[in-house]
């Protein structure tokens, strides 16, 4: 009985921001933002993104486009992934300083 009630009550709305068109736009904005971060990596990061990620002010426009295109939880998720990737890179590159310890 609960199942029939569910199927008659379920809304007909479709969340279009997880469908492929919006998704692809989100991925493009995200990639543009991270490419900007790579390009400007020598600049000092002053602006604060989410989950502790910092980025230089040159990438502000990319950041805004990115945040507009993607859901906030997705933005946090991708930022966290990027930070983890950066940390691993740093650890892999930094194998000189602790040699012999």
């Amino acid at each position, binding site marked *: 009985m609960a199942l029939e009630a569910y199927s008659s009550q379920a809304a007909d709305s479709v*969340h279009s921001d997880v469908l492929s068109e919006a998704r692809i736009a989100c991925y493009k904005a995200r990639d543009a933002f991270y490419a900007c971060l790579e390009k400007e990596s020598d600049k000092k990061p002053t602006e604060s993104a989410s989950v502790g990620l910092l980025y230089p002010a040159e990438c502000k426009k990319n950041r805004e486009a990115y945040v507009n295109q993607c859901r906030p939880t997705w933005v946090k*998720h991708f930022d966290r992934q990027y930070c983890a990737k950066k940390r691993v890179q740093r650890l892999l590159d930094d194998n000189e300083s602790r040699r012999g310890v």
Partner: protein
Amino acid sequence: MVHRRDSTLQAQDPRPGSVLAGIGGLVLFIRHNDEKRVVLKGEGEKYERSANKGPIIGGPLSLIDTEGQIVTEKNLIGNWVLLYFGYTSSPDVGPAEVRKMANTIDILESRQNIKVLPVFVTIDPQRDTPSHLRTYIREFDSRIVGLTGPVAAIRQIAQEYRVFFKKIDEQGDDYLVDTSHNMYLINPNMEVERSFGVEYSTDELAEAITKEIKKSKITNSQN
């Protein structure tokens, strides 16, 4: 002096004897009860726990598909089923897994002539309504059966398949669902053969499924 005769050397106090008799009766009763409840090895219900193989996962299900119709395990019996638990709002892993499932089904059908029914059960039923699920799945492969339902039904099937899912990163109305993104291969008798994680690529998945199906003695009733 009065010598007491042997017959009066019995214990005058009846309490210790009756207590012992009572304990003996209780032991006998518990033993009788246990023997009555015995389920011999190999018998028992279809979905009971197996002592040495671990819990038998899988079980009856009763959910709503994307057309609003009720789907139970009777609709799935007789097919090999590839069952995936996911949700549409996944940032990256979800769509990749569904794409992998669709491609694997294609490879299996074209190269190995094996028909496997792909099923997507959402673990986010509050946002994944039947119509939304239909639109989402149509972008990948409309052969995938999308299943949703009230939260209690989803919770029950997740419990049966031992699927972990948890809302995380809640921001207002928005949230992500942490889950293992496992795919389960189910034989035509509705028994779970094995599970595949995200580490399997499309080709590896197709190969592993082919191996399992060829190894199994149960043939698909439609093949």
